[in-house]
């Protein structure tokens, strides 16, 4: 039995191979890509396994839960693994031409794999301290990636990114310490079991606050998000795309995991809080995006806004709400990464991300326009793209649960999202090239195939998620159902 450990081991092996052959720069992309492809294939295989056989559990070291570290792949994890695989493959391909030689030979690919190892680890682990470890793996790799190249603005952003994320990690760690002190266990299922039996559960709240803050910082939730817009626009866009797709989502994943599995006692405190925070996050994110002129900054602020939707799903706390959150997360990972990749293509042609310095792309690059419109309108929730269904599911769930205010906020935020996307469209695509600017450096250049393939691939997924929403929603519903019935998880892990 090793399957649930493979999402960790494959990147590890890839890292070893990459480091071993680090002097052969030309091998690096291919080794990295092979690793990513393997991960995607594995993730799909795991998803099928979970679907057919139920939750996969691996007690590492043959130490029965709760004593050892148990790896658990349930429906939710498997969805996240597949998404991580998709992003890994896309970014690995995109980076072949998008990342310069120097960065490639300075450990770009090992760091991507390190990030994936952390992300995958976080998705499969069933142990809260082990989760912390994977968080750190992921974070450290992201620290390296965000500073890779050491340009001034990168370092500027990195200091905020690193310091705030470290504070978050330390809150997380403190929470683990306190929780262990109270319950004597680290295994998530065991925690759930013990807490469901204890009668003074409200005492968990104070530790839960620390987890909430830690995950909120990682997920870039209001008012903990500042590090994200301060830093995400600084590294090469392939890195931003990778971050945008995965990093904040790991925070959200953990929040959903914790607050559905074992911090479920004090609903009256937490769920309204989630809804409030979700609402604020959506609104603040989308409003702050409106005034930006750097494409990457607009997109970064939207990451925040869209995190709000996922939090909202958690706050609704019905199967539909959680399923909506999962679906929305899946949609957002794909579309958001894709918009960043398209931004990279725009930059490739125009040499800039500044909307004031670019224009006329609709005229000269009609295909690029289509490549942009799919994820952008997907994010804005235009049907029949995936974002529409994400919002539809969440808002329906909100109405069902009687949470009208947040649902209407979600609707309104959709409009402002559209506004931002149209702003990019108007400025970059429709507006004629600003006068006085000489032709763009890449105006007549052919875009590298390696940079276009992932965009097309992700765009197709956005389309597919719209048309094939039913099976995907069913998967999300299944995952949500598992999440909201912790007994299933406990039983699978502890074998009770």
């Amino acid at each position: 039995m090793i399957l649930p450990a493979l999402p960790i081991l494959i990147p590890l092996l890839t890292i070893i191979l990459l480091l071993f052959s680090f002097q052969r720069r030309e091998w690096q992309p291919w080794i990295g890509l092979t690793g990513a492809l393997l991960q995607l294939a594995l993730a799909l295989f795991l998803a099928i396994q979970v679907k057919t056989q139920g939750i996969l559990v691996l007690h590492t070291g043959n130490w029965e839960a709760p004593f050892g570290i148990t790896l658990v792949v349930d429906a939710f994890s498997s969805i996240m693994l597949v998404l991580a695989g998709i992003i890994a493959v896309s970014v690995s391909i995109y980076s072949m031409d998008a990342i310069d030689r120097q960065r490639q030979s300075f450990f770009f690919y090992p760091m991507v794999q390190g990030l994936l190892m952390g992300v995958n680890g976080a998705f499969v682990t069933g142990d809260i301290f082990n989760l912390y470890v994977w968080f750190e793996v992921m974070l450290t790799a992201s620290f390296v990636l965000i500073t890779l190249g050491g340009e001034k603005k990168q370092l500027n952003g990195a200091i905020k990114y690193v310091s705030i994320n470290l504070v978050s990690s330390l809150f997380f760690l403190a929470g683990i310490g306190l929780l262990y002190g109270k319950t004597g266990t680290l295994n998530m299922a065991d925690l759930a079991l013990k807490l469901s039996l204890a009668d003074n559960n409200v005492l968990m709240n104070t530790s839960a606050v620390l987890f909430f803050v830690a995950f909120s910082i990682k997920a870039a939730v209001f008012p903990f998000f500042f590090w994200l817009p301060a830093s995400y626009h600084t590294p090469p866009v392939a890195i931003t795309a990778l971050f945008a797709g995965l990093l904040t989502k790991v925070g959200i994943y953990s929040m959903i995991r914790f607050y559905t599995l074992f911090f479920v006692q004090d609903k009256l405190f937490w769920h309204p809080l989630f809804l409030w925070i979700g609402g604020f996050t959506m609104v603040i994110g989308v409003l702050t995006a409106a005034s930006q002129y750097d494409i990457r900054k607009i997109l970064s602020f939207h990451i925040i806004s869209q995190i709000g939707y996922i939090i909202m799903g958690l706050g609704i706390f019905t199967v539909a709400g959680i399923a909506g959150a999962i679906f929305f997360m899946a949609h957002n990972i794909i579309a958001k990464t894709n918009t960043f990749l398209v931004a990279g293509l725009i930059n490739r042609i125009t040499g800039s991300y500044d909307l004031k310095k670019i224009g006329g792309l609709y005229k000269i690059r009609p295909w690029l326009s289509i490549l942009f419109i799919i994820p952008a309108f997907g994010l804005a929730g235009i049907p029949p793209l995936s974002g529409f269904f994400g919002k539809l599911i969440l808002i329906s769930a909100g109405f069902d649960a009687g949470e009208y205010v947040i649902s209407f906020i979600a609707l309104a935020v959709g409009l402002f999202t559209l506004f931002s996307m149209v702003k990019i469209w108007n400025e970059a695509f429709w507006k004629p090239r600003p006068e006085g600017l000489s032709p763009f450096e890449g105006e007549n250049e052919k875009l590298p195939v390696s940079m276009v393939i992932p965009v097309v691939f992700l765009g197709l997924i956005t389309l597919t998620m719209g048309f094939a929403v039913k099976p995907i929603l069913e998967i999300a519903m299944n995952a949500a159902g598992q999440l909201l019935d912790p007994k299933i998880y406990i039983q699978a892990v502890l074998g009770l």
Partner: protein
Amino acid sequence: MTGILIYLIILLITALLSPILIRKGGKTAPWLLSMVSAAGFAYLLGFAGFISKGNALNYTIEWLPELYLNFSLYLDGLSLFFALLVTGMGSLVLVFSGNYMKPYPMKHRFFFLLLLFEFAMLGLILSGNLFTMFIFWELTSVSSFLLVGFNHEKPEARNAALQALLITVAGGLAMMAGFIMLGQMAGTLEINQLLQSGDIIRNHPHYLPALLLVLAGAFTKSAQFPFHFWLPGAMQAPSPVSAYLHSATMVKAGVYLLMRLSPVMGGTPEWKYILTITGAITMILGGYFAYSQTDFKKVLAYTTISALGTLVLMLGIGTDISIKAAIIFLLVHALYKGALFMIAGLIDKSVGSRDLRKIGGLSKVMPTASLAAIISLISMAGLPPMIGFIGKELIYEAKFALPDIGNLLLVAGVTTNVIMVAISLALIFNLFLGPLKYPGEKPKRPAFALRIGPALLAGISLIFGLFPARVADFLLSPAIKSIRPSIDSLKLSLWHGFNEVLLISFITVAAGVVLFLLYRKVNPLLTHFNTKVLTFRLADTFNNGLNMFLYLTKRKTSFIQSGYQRFYLMAIFIMTSVLAWYQLIYTWPEIENISFSKPGFFEMMILLLIVSSTLIAVLVRSRLAAILSLGAVGYGIGLLFIIYGAIDVAITLMLAETLVLVLFMVVIYHLPKFANFSSKASRLRDAAIALLVGGFMTGLVLKAGQLNLNPKISDFYVENAIPLAHGSNIVNVILVDFRALDTLGEITVLVIAAIGVVALLKLKTKKGSAT
């Protein structure tokens, strides 16, 4: 019904292929495209007989049944009527565009977008599920956005497109919320099933909010006050777009929705009053502004608004007669307005201007087009023998049927119609008859492709005016029956005999003629009034609002995202403190009987060491002293670990601490000395925040003692370290065996960090190479 689906797909494929066709196909390409549309028209017409017998077709593909979302098509009298309008007008407009768009280099994209719109619009009309409809609805918004902004190099065009998009999408989103509510009320969004659930919905407590939301969608799309302003702005679009979208199709989508849902939601007082009042205001406002415009196309845009108001008004009244009137007027309006917009484009193209003050007597250069225009304008004026006359007549009848506000509505209606008559006459006499007048070169005779559309539409108007009964039986009554099945016959004739309606009509015409005679005098005054005195304009307000919004968000962004790292951290700490203190205080009384061990003296000394080194590190000015004090803190904590038996931790801590200090020393000497950056006030504030955080952390640690859910998993480690894991250093056994996976992650972190250090120090890329 599968045929219709296939036709939709064909239409979509045609749209996708159209750019190639236009590029390669030369002159005939637009004709071919038009044929596709016309074929649709013919195919749909083939259903007329079947449908007129009261049948309906339904076709469903499951999509997301959990949320009542299916891909469904539904063909009944109403949708057939609209579908014919869409395809028929479509084919004419495509032909018109073939010539009109010739000089545009991007015309291949134009045809793509126009066909895409046609596809979306037809889909909207044929939708058998409200969500399907919503999807097509949004697609019409998007494709109309792209069409309105077709001349996207002009900022006004971009702005107008954005305006139209935001307004219609905003409405659409509200409508979507309304649909969700409808779905929850009725348990379905299939139109054929919804039609049976009217009573449930109307009696549901959420009826009113749902109604308001749905109306928001309909009103924005159909340019009802106060959302009407996007429509004149959208005149930035090339004329074929206006002829198609802004006369017959897209703006009618809202009206279509109201018609579609009136058996479901209509008939209640809320419905009646909201619709009639909104409709009346829109109607009269549109009339007024139409009268005061000087741009032909703007005149048409405002008359369109007025007409849309009229339609909504009639649907609001909701009597049998008003519903009949609505359907008839809708057709009438589509015919004359489509023709007139094309003529506006044709004039624009051949004269180079649309300014009513500069053009005149065009019948001398373009007789066919002028004749078509005059027929259409007579129809617009509601004069006999046009079918428009019948429409007008019915409006009056409807008004008599709503007693309490009937008189007000009547006044509004009469006023609007007077204005319409005046405008129509003014256009006929100033633009087409009378002496020839033009600003630039002498206008050329427009091409056949440009003339055929208007001519055909005018012809149809005329034929329908002369033989209304045939049309009524064949097309209109099935549509009317879809709205209200109880209406069984639609008698139409030009002559109703002498009655008060005819009297009012007569008065209307007379007043209209008077107003027409005043037109030349009054129009400049009104124009002046509109521009100088009536400075409040909704479109500007919208733009100003948008700018204000952007300004505010920018201000707010620079406040929220200030760029100051410490404010970011401060926000985090304050928020955390609020939550944690709240929880601490909230659960504090639960603390009972926590036993704490007695403090030992030398442990206290160690604590004193830690505390004083901490204070030194915080307060001392010398960086080195601060760092070395940190080292002392580390050693002190190490000693604590030693006292409490954590040997490996103590060693590791001291080793790591020392190495970090070494690194610190190496690095720090490159940095300048500590500057005294912050003011005393900010230091005090920060100290307060620091104590807030420290305080709750203390509280958390104390509270951790209140719960002890034994057994701890570490008991297992203590018992089994030797027998099962073959080691007596339990901590090490945990690290390499019980929890080896943690350690694997841990060394990965180390490796990554080491590589990161190498990359940071050794890799120095060119500035700006990060892309």
